[in-house]
Protein backbone atom coordinates (compact mmCIF):
# COMPACT_ATOMS: atom_id res chain seq x y z
CA UNK A 1 0.00 0.00 0.00
CA UNK A 2 1.39 3.42 -0.80
CA UNK A 3 1.65 5.64 2.23
CA UNK A 4 1.16 9.10 0.76
CA UNK A 5 0.38 10.67 4.14
CA UNK A 6 3.37 9.08 5.96
CA UNK A 7 1.01 7.37 8.38
CA UNK A 8 2.97 4.16 8.98
CA UNK A 9 6.34 3.81 10.72
CA UNK A 10 6.29 0.06 10.06
CA UNK A 11 3.81 -1.63 7.70
CA UNK A 12 3.49 -5.21 8.82
CA UNK A 13 0.52 -7.50 8.99
CA UNK A 14 -0.23 -9.43 12.20
CA UNK A 15 -3.19 -11.78 11.88
CA UNK A 16 -5.62 -12.13 14.75
CA UNK A 17 -7.90 -14.99 15.76
CA UNK A 18 -10.46 -16.31 13.29
CA UNK A 19 -13.50 -15.09 15.10
CA UNK A 20 -14.49 -12.45 17.60
CA UNK A 21 -16.18 -9.04 17.61
CA UNK A 22 -13.45 -7.57 15.38
CA UNK A 23 -13.15 -10.51 12.93
CA UNK A 24 -12.49 -9.32 9.39
CA UNK A 25 -11.56 -5.83 10.60
CA UNK A 26 -8.21 -4.08 10.34
CA UNK A 27 -6.55 -1.99 13.02
CA UNK A 28 -3.58 0.39 13.18
CA UNK A 29 -1.52 0.45 16.39
CA UNK A 30 0.25 3.53 17.75
CA UNK A 31 3.97 2.88 17.74
CA UNK A 32 4.34 3.18 21.53
CA UNK A 33 2.51 -0.14 22.07
CA UNK A 34 4.68 -3.26 22.21
CA UNK A 35 4.20 -5.80 19.41
CA UNK A 36 6.14 -9.04 19.80
CA UNK A 37 8.70 -9.37 17.01
CA UNK A 38 7.63 -6.12 15.28
CA UNK A 39 9.70 -3.03 15.99
CA UNK A 40 8.20 -0.40 18.25
CA UNK A 41 9.91 2.97 17.84
CA UNK A 42 7.80 5.38 19.91
CA UNK A 43 8.56 7.86 17.12
CA UNK A 44 12.15 8.14 18.38
CA UNK A 45 15.65 7.48 17.05
CA UNK A 46 16.31 6.08 20.54
CA UNK A 47 14.12 3.07 19.72
CA UNK A 48 14.53 2.96 15.93
CA UNK A 49 15.67 -0.69 16.08
CA UNK A 50 13.85 -1.82 19.22
CA UNK A 51 11.94 -5.10 18.80
CA UNK A 52 9.77 -5.99 21.83
CA UNK A 53 9.90 -9.60 23.09
CA UNK A 54 6.22 -9.49 24.14
CA UNK A 55 2.84 -7.92 23.29
CA UNK A 56 1.14 -5.11 25.17
CA UNK A 57 -2.09 -6.34 26.80
CA UNK A 58 -4.20 -4.20 24.44
CA UNK A 59 -2.42 -5.74 21.42
CA UNK A 60 -3.23 -9.25 22.69
CA UNK A 61 -6.84 -8.20 23.25
CA UNK A 62 -7.45 -6.84 19.74
CA UNK A 63 -5.81 -9.94 18.20
CA UNK A 64 -7.94 -12.24 20.38
CA UNK A 65 -11.00 -10.25 19.24
CA UNK A 66 -10.18 -11.18 15.63
CA UNK A 67 -8.68 -7.94 14.33
CA UNK A 68 -5.82 -7.91 11.84
CA UNK A 69 -3.06 -5.41 12.65
CA UNK A 70 -1.94 -3.58 9.49
CA UNK A 71 0.99 -1.71 10.99
CA UNK A 72 2.53 0.55 13.58
CA UNK A 73 1.65 4.17 13.06
CA UNK A 74 3.38 7.51 13.49
CA UNK A 75 3.28 9.64 16.61
CA UNK A 76 5.02 12.52 18.29
CA UNK A 77 8.31 11.32 19.78
CA UNK A 78 7.53 9.55 23.07
CA UNK A 79 3.96 10.95 22.69
CA UNK A 80 5.27 14.43 23.44
CA UNK A 81 3.48 16.83 21.13
CA UNK A 82 0.13 17.69 19.63
CA UNK A 83 0.92 17.64 15.91
CA UNK A 84 2.92 14.40 15.20
CA UNK A 85 5.66 16.69 13.85
CA UNK A 86 8.15 15.78 16.61
CA UNK A 87 8.40 12.21 15.26
CA UNK A 88 11.90 11.12 14.22
CA UNK A 89 10.20 9.52 11.19
CA UNK A 90 8.86 12.76 9.70
CA UNK A 91 5.51 14.53 9.84
CA UNK A 92 2.20 12.89 8.89
CA UNK A 93 -0.20 14.71 6.57
CA UNK A 94 -3.86 15.08 7.54
CA UNK A 95 -6.00 13.03 5.11
CA UNK A 96 -9.08 15.11 6.03
CA UNK A 97 -7.27 18.41 5.52
CA UNK A 98 -4.18 17.95 3.31
CA UNK A 99 -1.29 20.27 4.11
CA UNK A 100 -2.35 20.46 7.75
CA UNK A 101 -1.18 18.51 10.80
CA UNK A 102 -3.26 15.46 11.83
CA UNK A 103 -2.96 16.46 15.50
CA UNK A 104 -1.12 14.37 18.01
CA UNK A 105 0.38 12.69 19.61
CA UNK A 106 -1.64 9.78 18.11
CA UNK A 107 -1.65 11.50 14.70
CA UNK A 108 -0.89 8.34 12.72
CA UNK A 109 -3.77 6.52 14.44
CA UNK A 110 -6.35 9.18 13.54
CA UNK A 111 -4.92 9.61 10.03
CA UNK A 112 -5.07 5.83 9.39
CA UNK A 113 -8.78 5.82 10.21
CA UNK A 114 -9.49 9.04 8.27
CA UNK A 115 -7.62 7.74 5.18
CA UNK A 116 -9.37 4.36 5.33
CA UNK A 117 -6.03 2.57 5.82
CA UNK A 118 -7.56 0.79 8.83
CA UNK A 119 -11.09 0.27 10.18
CA UNK A 120 -9.94 1.06 13.72
CA UNK A 121 -6.89 2.40 15.54
CA UNK A 122 -5.47 2.44 19.04
CA UNK A 123 -3.97 5.62 20.44
CA UNK A 124 -2.86 6.75 23.87
CA UNK A 125 -4.03 9.91 25.61
CA UNK A 126 -1.87 11.57 28.27
CA UNK A 127 -3.12 15.12 27.80
CA UNK A 128 -5.41 14.83 24.78
CA UNK A 129 -3.38 12.63 22.45
CA UNK A 130 -6.40 10.59 21.28
CA UNK A 131 -9.03 13.37 21.29
CA UNK A 132 -6.85 16.03 19.62
CA UNK A 133 -6.04 13.99 16.47
CA UNK A 134 -9.60 12.59 16.37
CA UNK A 135 -10.88 16.18 16.24
CA UNK A 136 -8.31 17.33 13.67
CA UNK A 137 -8.91 14.32 11.37
CA UNK A 138 -12.71 14.24 11.69
CA UNK A 139 -12.96 10.85 13.42
CA UNK A 140 -14.14 9.63 16.84
CA UNK A 141 -11.72 9.10 19.75
CA UNK A 142 -12.27 8.08 23.37
CA UNK A 143 -10.07 8.72 26.42
CA UNK A 144 -11.34 6.21 29.03
CA UNK A 145 -11.51 6.67 32.81
CA UNK A 146 -8.03 6.23 34.33
CA UNK A 147 -7.41 2.54 34.98
CA UNK A 148 -10.19 1.24 32.70
CA UNK A 149 -7.66 -0.04 30.12
CA UNK A 150 -4.32 -1.75 30.77
CA UNK A 151 -1.12 0.16 30.04
CA UNK A 152 1.06 -2.99 30.25
CA UNK A 153 3.49 -2.93 27.34
CA UNK A 154 2.98 0.78 26.52
CA UNK A 155 6.20 2.83 26.52
CA UNK A 156 5.66 5.04 29.58
CA UNK A 157 5.55 8.84 29.35
CA UNK A 158 3.47 10.06 32.34
CA UNK A 159 1.93 7.09 34.12
CA UNK A 160 -0.50 8.97 36.35
CA UNK A 161 -2.19 10.61 33.36
CA UNK A 162 -2.12 8.25 30.39
CA UNK A 163 -4.74 5.84 29.08
CA UNK A 164 -5.03 3.81 25.88
CA UNK A 165 -8.07 4.77 23.82
CA UNK A 166 -9.90 3.71 20.64
CA UNK A 167 -10.27 5.67 17.38
CA UNK A 168 -12.86 4.80 14.70
CA UNK A 169 -15.08 6.43 12.07
CA UNK A 170 -18.22 6.26 14.25
CA UNK A 171 -19.15 6.39 17.93
CA UNK A 172 -20.59 2.85 17.85
CA UNK A 173 -17.36 1.42 16.41
CA UNK A 174 -15.16 3.31 18.89
CA UNK A 175 -17.39 1.98 21.70
CA UNK A 176 -17.05 -1.58 20.36
CA UNK A 177 -13.25 -1.31 20.36
CA UNK A 178 -13.39 0.06 23.91
CA UNK A 179 -15.36 -3.04 24.92
CA UNK A 180 -12.54 -5.17 23.51
CA UNK A 181 -9.67 -3.42 25.29
CA UNK A 182 -11.31 -2.44 28.62
CA UNK A 183 -10.96 -4.56 31.74
CA UNK A 184 -8.59 -5.25 34.60
CA UNK A 185 -5.14 -6.71 34.02
CA UNK A 186 -2.93 -8.36 36.66
CA UNK A 187 0.08 -6.97 34.77
CA UNK A 188 -1.01 -3.35 35.38
CA UNK A 189 -1.71 -2.63 39.04
CA UNK A 190 -3.36 0.69 38.16
CA UNK A 191 -6.21 -1.02 36.32
CA UNK A 192 -9.62 -1.36 37.97
CA UNK A 193 -12.69 -3.50 37.27
CA UNK A 194 -14.80 -0.59 35.94
CA UNK A 195 -14.71 -1.98 32.40
CA UNK A 196 -15.05 -5.71 33.17
CA UNK A 197 -17.97 -7.20 31.23
CA UNK A 198 -18.75 -3.87 29.56
CA UNK A 199 -21.22 -3.32 26.72
CA UNK A 200 -20.42 0.23 25.67
CA UNK A 201 -21.44 -0.42 22.06
CA UNK A 202 -25.07 -0.83 23.18
CA UNK A 203 -24.98 2.68 24.67
CA UNK A 204 -24.57 4.27 21.22
CA UNK A 205 -28.33 4.57 20.80
CA UNK A 206 -28.67 8.31 20.19
CA UNK A 207 -31.02 8.83 23.12
CA UNK A 208 -30.43 12.15 24.89
CA UNK A 209 -33.92 12.69 26.34
CA UNK A 210 -33.52 13.74 30.00
CA UNK A 211 -29.76 14.26 29.57
CA UNK A 212 -28.32 17.47 31.02
CA UNK A 213 -25.32 18.88 29.17
CA UNK A 214 -23.18 21.54 30.85
CA UNK A 215 -21.19 23.79 28.50
CA UNK A 216 -17.87 24.72 30.17
CA UNK A 217 -17.71 28.48 29.56
CA UNK A 218 -14.02 28.68 30.61
CA UNK A 219 -13.10 26.47 27.63
CA UNK A 220 -15.15 28.52 25.15
CA UNK A 221 -13.44 31.80 25.98
CA UNK A 222 -10.03 30.78 24.63
CA UNK A 223 -11.35 29.13 21.44
CA UNK A 224 -11.44 30.64 17.95
CA UNK A 225 -14.79 32.21 17.02
CA UNK A 226 -15.47 29.94 14.05
CA UNK A 227 -14.65 26.86 16.17
CA UNK A 228 -17.11 28.08 18.80
CA UNK A 229 -19.76 28.60 16.09
CA UNK A 230 -19.41 24.99 14.89
CA UNK A 231 -19.44 23.76 18.51
CA UNK A 232 -22.61 25.77 19.22
CA UNK A 233 -24.38 24.16 16.26
CA UNK A 234 -23.69 20.72 17.77
CA UNK A 235 -25.00 21.86 21.14
CA UNK A 236 -28.16 23.31 19.51
CA UNK A 237 -28.61 19.98 17.74
CA UNK A 238 -28.41 18.07 21.04
CA UNK A 239 -30.95 20.47 22.52
CA UNK A 240 -33.33 19.90 19.61
CA UNK A 241 -33.09 16.16 20.33
CA UNK A 242 -34.28 16.64 23.90
CA UNK A 243 -31.13 17.35 25.90
CA UNK A 244 -31.20 20.13 28.47
CA UNK A 245 -28.34 22.61 28.00
CA UNK A 246 -26.85 24.64 30.83
CA UNK A 247 -23.64 26.60 31.45
CA UNK A 248 -20.91 25.68 33.94
CA UNK A 249 -17.78 27.54 35.03
CA UNK A 250 -14.82 25.84 36.74
CA UNK A 251 -12.32 28.29 38.29
CA UNK A 252 -9.54 25.72 38.62
CA UNK A 253 -9.24 25.22 34.85
CA UNK A 254 -7.19 28.40 34.57
CA UNK A 255 -4.32 26.40 36.11
CA UNK A 256 -4.87 23.09 34.32
CA UNK A 257 -2.28 23.51 31.54
CA UNK A 258 0.39 24.63 34.04
CA UNK A 259 -0.38 21.71 36.36
CA UNK A 260 -0.52 19.21 33.51
CA UNK A 261 2.86 20.16 32.06
CA UNK A 262 4.64 20.25 35.43
CA UNK A 263 3.30 16.79 36.32
CA UNK A 264 3.79 15.25 32.87
CA UNK A 265 7.33 16.60 32.51
CA UNK A 266 8.28 15.49 36.02
CA UNK A 267 7.03 11.96 35.39
CA UNK A 268 8.71 11.95 31.97
CA UNK A 269 12.08 12.95 33.42
CA UNK A 270 11.92 9.91 35.69
CA UNK A 271 10.43 7.45 33.15
CA UNK A 272 12.89 8.30 30.39
CA UNK A 273 15.92 7.79 32.65
CA UNK A 274 15.86 4.17 31.46
CA UNK A 275 17.06 5.14 27.98
CA UNK A 276 20.80 4.93 28.56
CA UNK A 277 21.93 2.83 25.62
CA UNK A 278 22.70 -0.28 27.71
CA UNK A 279 19.58 -2.45 27.32
CA UNK A 280 18.43 -0.80 24.10
CA UNK A 281 19.21 2.35 22.12
CA UNK A 282 21.93 3.58 19.80
CA UNK A 283 25.48 2.33 20.21
CA UNK A 284 27.59 5.48 20.48
CA UNK A 285 31.32 5.39 20.61
CA UNK A 286 31.72 7.80 23.52
CA UNK A 287 34.87 8.07 25.55
CA UNK A 288 34.86 8.62 29.30
CA UNK A 289 32.95 7.16 32.20
CA UNK A 290 29.35 5.93 32.31
CA UNK A 291 27.92 9.42 32.94
CA UNK A 292 29.60 10.75 29.81
CA UNK A 293 28.46 7.76 27.74
CA UNK A 294 24.83 7.97 28.91
CA UNK A 295 24.73 11.72 28.22
CA UNK A 296 26.10 11.15 24.71
CA UNK A 297 23.55 8.41 23.96
CA UNK A 298 20.71 10.64 25.16
CA UNK A 299 21.96 13.63 23.16
CA UNK A 300 21.92 11.49 20.03
CA UNK A 301 18.75 9.48 20.67
CA UNK A 302 16.30 12.18 21.84
CA UNK A 303 14.81 15.00 19.76
CA UNK A 304 14.37 18.59 20.96
CA UNK A 305 10.86 18.32 22.49
CA UNK A 306 11.80 15.22 24.49
CA UNK A 307 14.96 16.92 25.79
CA UNK A 308 12.92 19.99 26.67
CA UNK A 309 10.47 17.99 28.75
CA UNK A 310 13.13 15.85 30.46
CA UNK A 311 15.09 18.96 31.42
CA UNK A 312 12.07 20.96 32.60
CA UNK A 313 10.85 17.94 34.58
CA UNK A 314 14.28 17.51 36.14
CA UNK A 315 14.22 21.21 37.01
CA UNK A 316 10.72 21.03 38.56
CA UNK A 317 11.78 18.13 40.80
CA UNK A 318 15.22 19.48 41.72
CA UNK A 319 16.19 20.71 45.19
CA UNK A 320 14.58 24.05 45.98
CA UNK A 321 11.94 23.87 43.23
CA UNK A 322 9.89 20.79 44.13
CA UNK A 323 7.47 22.69 46.42
CA UNK A 324 7.18 25.64 44.04
CA UNK A 325 6.28 23.59 40.96
CA UNK A 326 5.50 19.91 41.56
CA UNK A 327 3.65 20.25 44.87
CA UNK A 328 1.58 23.21 43.64
CA UNK A 329 0.76 21.28 40.47
CA UNK A 330 -0.56 18.41 42.61
CA UNK A 331 -2.73 20.89 44.52
CA UNK A 332 -4.06 22.24 41.22
CA UNK A 333 -4.79 18.68 40.07
CA UNK A 334 -6.81 17.97 43.22
CA UNK A 335 -8.67 21.28 42.75
CA UNK A 336 -9.56 20.40 39.14
CA UNK A 337 -10.91 17.02 40.34
CA UNK A 338 -13.04 18.72 43.01
CA UNK A 339 -14.41 21.20 40.48
CA UNK A 340 -15.45 18.40 38.12
CA UNK A 341 -17.02 16.40 40.97
CA UNK A 342 -19.15 19.41 41.95
CA UNK A 343 -20.19 20.03 38.34
CA UNK A 344 -21.35 16.43 37.93
CA UNK A 345 -23.74 16.90 40.85
CA UNK A 346 -25.70 19.20 38.50
CA UNK A 347 -25.15 17.79 34.99
CA UNK A 348 -24.73 14.39 33.27
CA UNK A 349 -22.04 15.39 30.79
CA UNK A 350 -19.84 18.44 30.23
CA UNK A 351 -19.12 19.84 26.77
CA UNK A 352 -16.47 21.97 25.07
CA UNK A 353 -14.78 22.20 21.70
CA UNK A 354 -12.13 19.41 21.72
CA UNK A 355 -9.50 21.80 20.36
CA UNK A 356 -9.70 25.59 20.60
CA UNK A 357 -8.35 25.88 17.03
CA UNK A 358 -8.56 24.10 13.68
CA UNK A 359 -5.52 22.03 12.57
CA UNK A 360 -2.48 24.29 11.91
CA UNK A 361 -0.64 23.99 8.62
CA UNK A 362 2.29 21.58 8.59
CA UNK A 363 5.43 23.34 9.88
CA UNK A 364 3.49 26.36 11.11
CA UNK A 365 3.58 25.95 14.87
CA UNK A 366 6.63 24.00 16.03
CA UNK A 367 8.87 27.00 16.82
CA UNK A 368 7.07 28.12 19.95
CA UNK A 369 6.65 25.31 22.50
CA UNK A 370 4.59 27.38 24.95
CA UNK A 371 1.99 28.23 22.28
CA UNK A 372 1.70 24.52 21.46
CA UNK A 373 1.21 23.66 25.14
CA UNK A 374 -1.62 26.21 25.36
CA UNK A 375 -3.40 24.41 22.49
CA UNK A 376 -4.05 21.59 25.02
CA UNK A 377 -6.20 23.78 27.29
CA UNK A 378 -9.44 21.88 26.64
CA UNK A 379 -8.10 18.33 26.79
CA UNK A 380 -5.66 18.24 29.75
CA UNK A 381 -8.25 18.90 32.52
CA UNK A 382 -9.80 15.49 31.77
CA UNK A 383 -6.49 13.67 32.35
CA UNK A 384 -5.81 15.59 35.56
CA UNK A 385 -9.23 14.50 36.86
CA UNK A 386 -8.91 10.85 35.67
CA UNK A 387 -12.22 11.20 33.76
CA UNK A 388 -13.56 9.71 30.51
CA UNK A 389 -14.11 11.93 27.45
CA UNK A 390 -14.95 11.48 23.79
CA UNK A 391 -14.30 13.63 20.74
CA UNK A 392 -16.89 13.41 17.98
CA UNK A 393 -16.90 15.34 14.66
CA UNK A 394 -18.78 18.64 14.86
CA UNK A 395 -18.65 19.95 11.32
CA UNK A 396 -15.85 22.04 9.89
CA UNK A 397 -14.53 25.54 9.35
CA UNK A 398 -13.69 26.05 5.66
CA UNK A 399 -13.06 22.32 5.29
CA UNK A 400 -10.99 22.01 8.50
CA UNK A 401 -12.52 19.53 10.98
CA UNK A 402 -13.84 20.62 14.38
CA UNK A 403 -14.42 18.24 17.30
CA UNK A 404 -17.02 18.26 20.07
CA UNK A 405 -15.66 17.01 23.41
CA UNK A 406 -18.08 15.38 25.84
CA UNK A 407 -16.75 14.63 29.34
CA UNK A 408 -18.35 12.21 31.80
CA UNK A 409 -17.98 11.42 35.49
CA UNK A 410 -15.70 8.53 36.56
CA UNK A 411 -16.88 5.35 34.74
CA UNK A 412 -19.43 7.46 32.82
CA UNK A 413 -18.36 5.93 29.47
CA UNK A 414 -21.90 4.85 28.59
CA UNK A 415 -23.27 8.35 29.14
CA UNK A 416 -20.70 10.10 26.92
CA UNK A 417 -21.08 7.41 24.25
CA UNK A 418 -24.86 7.89 24.26
CA UNK A 419 -24.55 11.69 24.02
CA UNK A 420 -21.88 11.48 21.31
CA UNK A 421 -23.96 9.06 19.24
CA UNK A 422 -26.76 11.67 19.22
CA UNK A 423 -24.33 14.44 18.29
CA UNK A 424 -22.91 12.59 15.27
CA UNK A 425 -26.30 11.93 13.64
Amino acid at each position, binding site marked *: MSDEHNIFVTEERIDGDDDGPLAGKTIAIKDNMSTEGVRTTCGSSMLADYVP*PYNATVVDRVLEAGATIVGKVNMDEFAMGGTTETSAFGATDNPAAPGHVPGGSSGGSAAAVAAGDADFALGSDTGGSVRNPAAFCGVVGIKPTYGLVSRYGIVAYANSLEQVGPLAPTVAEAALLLDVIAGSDPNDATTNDGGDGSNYAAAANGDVEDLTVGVITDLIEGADDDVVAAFQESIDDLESQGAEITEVSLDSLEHAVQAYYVIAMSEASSNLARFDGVRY*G*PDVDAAG*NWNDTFAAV*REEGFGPEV*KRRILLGTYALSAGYHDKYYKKAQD*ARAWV*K*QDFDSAFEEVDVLASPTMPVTPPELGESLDDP*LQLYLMDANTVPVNLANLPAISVPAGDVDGLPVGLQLIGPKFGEETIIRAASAAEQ
Partner: protein
Amino acid sequence: MSDSPVDPGDVRHVAELARVDLDDDEVEEFTEQFADILTYFEALDEVPEVDAEPELVNVMRSDEVREGLSQEAALQNAPETEDGFFKGPSVS
Protein backbone atom coordinates in the same frame (compact mmCIF):
# COMPACT_ATOMS: atom_id res chain seq x y z
CA MET B 1 20.54 39.57 38.67
CA SER B 2 18.05 39.51 35.81
CA ASP B 3 14.31 38.90 36.14
CA SER B 4 14.54 35.75 34.05
CA PRO B 5 14.02 32.63 36.14
CA VAL B 6 16.68 30.75 34.19
CA ASP B 7 20.15 31.42 32.75
CA PRO B 8 22.45 29.26 30.57
CA GLY B 9 24.19 27.94 33.70
CA ASP B 10 20.87 26.59 35.01
CA VAL B 11 20.18 24.82 31.71
CA ARG B 12 23.63 23.21 31.74
CA HIS B 13 23.13 22.17 35.37
CA VAL B 14 19.79 20.38 34.80
CA ALA B 15 21.15 18.83 31.60
CA GLU B 16 23.97 17.38 33.67
CA LEU B 17 21.53 16.10 36.30
CA ALA B 18 19.42 14.52 33.53
CA ARG B 19 22.49 13.09 31.74
CA VAL B 20 21.77 14.79 28.41
CA ASP B 21 24.63 16.45 26.50
CA LEU B 22 23.65 19.75 24.89
CA ASP B 23 25.53 21.78 22.30
CA ASP B 24 25.83 25.56 22.67
CA ASP B 25 22.95 26.27 20.29
CA GLU B 26 20.65 24.03 22.29
CA VAL B 27 21.64 25.73 25.54
CA GLU B 28 20.87 29.12 24.04
CA GLU B 29 17.51 28.03 22.62
CA PHE B 30 16.43 26.22 25.79
CA THR B 31 17.43 29.16 28.01
CA GLU B 32 15.07 31.42 26.11
CA GLN B 33 12.22 28.88 25.91
CA PHE B 34 12.55 27.78 29.55
CA ALA B 35 12.27 31.42 30.67
CA ASP B 36 8.89 31.71 28.86
CA ILE B 37 7.61 28.36 30.09
CA LEU B 38 8.74 28.73 33.71
CA THR B 39 7.31 32.24 33.85
CA TYR B 40 4.00 30.77 32.72
CA PHE B 41 4.24 28.04 35.42
CA GLU B 42 4.67 30.79 38.07
CA ALA B 43 0.88 31.24 38.08
CA LEU B 44 0.68 27.99 40.08
CA ASP B 45 1.56 30.21 43.08
CA GLU B 46 -2.09 31.31 43.11
CA VAL B 47 -3.37 27.74 43.63
CA PRO B 48 -4.67 27.13 47.16
CA GLU B 49 -3.57 24.09 49.18
CA VAL B 50 -6.02 21.25 48.53
CA ASP B 51 -6.41 18.07 50.58
CA ALA B 52 -6.88 15.00 48.42
CA GLU B 53 -7.13 11.28 49.05
CA PRO B 54 -4.96 9.16 46.75
CA GLU B 55 -7.13 7.07 44.40
CA LEU B 56 -4.62 4.31 43.83
CA VAL B 57 -3.89 1.61 46.37
CA ASN B 58 -1.11 -0.95 46.54
CA VAL B 59 -1.95 -4.23 44.83
CA MET B 60 -0.21 -7.20 46.41
CA ARG B 61 0.32 -10.75 45.23
CA SER B 62 2.20 -13.67 46.70
CA ASP B 63 5.88 -13.79 45.80
CA GLU B 64 5.93 -16.89 43.64
CA VAL B 65 8.12 -17.82 40.69
CA ARG B 66 6.31 -17.13 37.42
CA GLU B 67 7.17 -17.39 33.78
CA GLY B 68 9.31 -14.49 32.56
CA LEU B 69 11.48 -13.48 29.63
CA SER B 70 14.32 -15.81 28.72
CA GLN B 71 17.81 -14.40 29.14
CA GLU B 72 18.17 -14.40 25.37
CA ALA B 73 14.95 -12.40 24.84
CA ALA B 74 15.91 -9.92 27.55
CA LEU B 75 19.27 -9.29 25.89
CA GLN B 76 18.10 -9.20 22.28
CA ASN B 77 17.95 -5.38 21.99
CA ALA B 78 21.20 -4.59 23.80
CA PRO B 79 23.92 -2.93 21.70
CA GLU B 80 26.57 -4.92 23.60
CA THR B 81 26.44 -8.11 25.64
CA GLU B 82 29.06 -10.42 27.13
CA ASP B 83 28.62 -13.93 28.51
CA GLY B 84 24.84 -13.49 28.79
CA PHE B 85 25.06 -10.09 30.51
CA PHE B 86 24.40 -6.52 29.44
CA LYS B 87 27.66 -4.73 28.84
CA GLY B 88 27.74 -1.12 30.01
CA PRO B 89 30.38 1.61 29.97
CA SER B 90 33.06 1.68 32.64
CA VAL B 91 31.97 3.07 35.98
CA SER B 92 35.02 5.13 36.88
